[in-house]
């Protein structure tokens, strides 16, 4: 399929693929087994300038946009989704800074992120606030020169490993959602510690952890945007980041499709490779149709984001929902095509199936996102512009 990628985008894609195949493939099963954060690979990604991709040139980046990020995430995810999400979560952590940060904040933090010296993370979820983000309880009390942060964030990707955290907390408890603000918190700030590291079904090499704030002082220059803008920052962030989850899903499904196709051509039953069975052919045909359709939607959405379009909530949500539901189905079918072997850890597809599930859950569950899509649909009366 011709996606009219620029020369630069083709270079990015092929280098990401090279890294995935040469550095990640040999260790992915072990990383999954040991639930070990892939530091060596993160360093390879940094050395190859992959963290520069989504950062503007003024801050030592390469000035790429959402599509460029998606290309990297897809290629990494094709081989290992844990690595892909550890990478993508850095983008998640700094989009608020890119969108709403001051020149000073950007100068201070972005060059290090571009160089891969500091990873980033984004934290809104709490034990009592998942889909209902407005129920957050973490507070940022105004004190002289800054804020005192108190509360616990849960399920934070790159938690413990990242140096830079964008944290959503209430600066004004009386104003509900309008009282939330986004604060940049550096690792090793006194009063900031890490809780439990989660043990997961999939993306096991990625880190998912609790952040604990106990009278943690954050200087006032670390607020992103203005007080009260926390949820606006978050909405805008997810609009831009959700295509990345779509790309994660597409990459996963692509990996599963390739594994299933290879296996079907090799595996002989009843005297023929199982690929010759129409039942298997049709399953594979459906898989490739879905993968390509999802890819097309994700790329188109990423391009819409990159065009600077103002309201992309519906589009972003669609790309994420469609691609993640697709990935769940395609990876499950891949396991089916590999039969008993597919259920075993000797083959990569069981991991892909486990990894696929999360794409339907985080950055807004697919139920929540269908709500978003329906709201947009009603607003636009089903018309397209």
């Amino acid at each position, binding site marked *: 399929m011709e996606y009219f990628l620029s020369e630069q985008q083709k*270079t990015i894609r092929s*280098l990401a693929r*090279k890294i995935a195949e040469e550095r990640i493939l040999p260790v992915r099963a072990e990383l999954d087994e040991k639930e070990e954060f892939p530091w060596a690979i993160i360093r390879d990604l940094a050395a*190859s*300038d*992959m963290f*520069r*991709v989504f950062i503007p040139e003024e801050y030592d980046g*390469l000035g790429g946009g959402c599509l460029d990020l998606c290309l990297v995430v897809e290629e990494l995810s094709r081989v290992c989704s844990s690595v892909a999400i550890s990478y993508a979560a850095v983008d998640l952590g700094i989009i608020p800074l890119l969108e709403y940060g001051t020149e000073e904040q950007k100068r201070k933090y972005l060059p290090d992120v571009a160089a891969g010296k500091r990873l980033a993370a984004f934290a809104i979820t709490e034990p009592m606030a998942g889909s209902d983000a407005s129920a957050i309880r973490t507070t940022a009390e105004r004190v002289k020169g800054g804020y005192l942060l108190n509360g616990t964030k849960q399920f934070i990707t790159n938690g413990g490993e990242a140096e830079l955290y964008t944290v959503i907390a209430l600066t004004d408890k009386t104003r509900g959602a309008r009282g939330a603000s986004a604060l940049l918190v550096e690792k090793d700030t006194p009063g900031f510690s890490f809780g439990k590291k989660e043990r997961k079904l999939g993306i096991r090499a990625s880190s998912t952890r609790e952040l604990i704030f106990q009278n943690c002082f954050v200087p006032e220059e670390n607020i992103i945007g203005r007080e009260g803008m926390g949820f606006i920052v978050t909405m805008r962030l997810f609009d831009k980041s959700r295509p990345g989850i779509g790309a994660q899903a597409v990459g996963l499904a692509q990996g599963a499709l390739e594994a299933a196709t290879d296996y079907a051509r090799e595996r002989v039953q009843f005297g023929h490779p199982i690929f010759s069975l129409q039942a298997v052919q049709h399953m594979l045909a459906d898989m490739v149709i879905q993968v390509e359709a999802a890819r097309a939607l994700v790329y188109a959405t990423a391009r819409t984001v990159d065009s600077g379009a103002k309201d992309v909530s519906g589009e972003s949500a669609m790309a994420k929902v469609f691609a993640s539901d697709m990935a769940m189905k395609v990876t499950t079918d891949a396991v089916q095509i590999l039969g008993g072997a597919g259920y075993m850890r000797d083959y990569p597809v069981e991991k892909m199936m486990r990894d696929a599930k999360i794409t339907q859950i985080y950055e807004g569950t697919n139920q929540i996102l269908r709500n978003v899509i329906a709201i947009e649909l009603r607003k636009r009366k089903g018309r397209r512009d």
Partner: protein
Amino acid sequence: MDIIVCLKQVPGTTQVKIDPQTNTLVRQGIKNITNPFDTYALEAAIRLKEQYGGKVTAISMGPPQADEMLREAISLGADEAILLSDRAFAGADTLATSYTLARAITKIEKYDLIICGRQTIDGDTGQVGPELAEMLSLPFVAYVSKIEEINNGQMRVQRMIEEGYEVIEAPLPAVISVVKEINVPRLPSLRGITRAKSAVIPAWGAKELDADQDRVGLAGSATRVIKIFFPQRGKRAEILQGSPQSQVASLVTKLRENGLI
């Protein structure tokens, strides 16, 4: 610290075919790669530059398509690259190759260290490094597995020997050849690739090198290749199967049966 790295483009396979008529390698249809040992040489050079500052220049004698390999070297971190290419260089043996490289290095003038791979995977002789040192009248250390320190115009390196390693100090400039144990080569970077695309890689021929026509290419080669062949594969080979234990047992039985042990 200015470093010159010698890179050779080789066929990306160990199953090279030899043209029985001309006794030369059949290169058609085979993807070329950087000689694997030379990738360690390049990585060693880049790391030294990162540590001590300076410049890395990659040089290669080869046909015009070696340009592609030199661009890759730039994408990995070499600052400059020079291709030594001329019809007159064709058919060079190690002597003529070393002479040509030595001429280029002399022309580059400013260098503290020259790094080669331990050997190539096609020619396989491992002679170019030492010959180069001889021609340039420089010290040479082969099989370097670690560069410990560079200080005050001296280097201290470890070199692999069969029973372990030796630590050798030598004055700079010097020539070393490196083994794969020295490092894990990096992957290219996006900024490097961009730089490589627009890099200007000069091609120097015999004229630019002010080379003696009788010492380059076939004319300058002391080797005459009479015949190259792969040894006949024995037809009576037998592959033992089963668990390692049972394989060993049946191997011992067979060796006994044949009166070999």
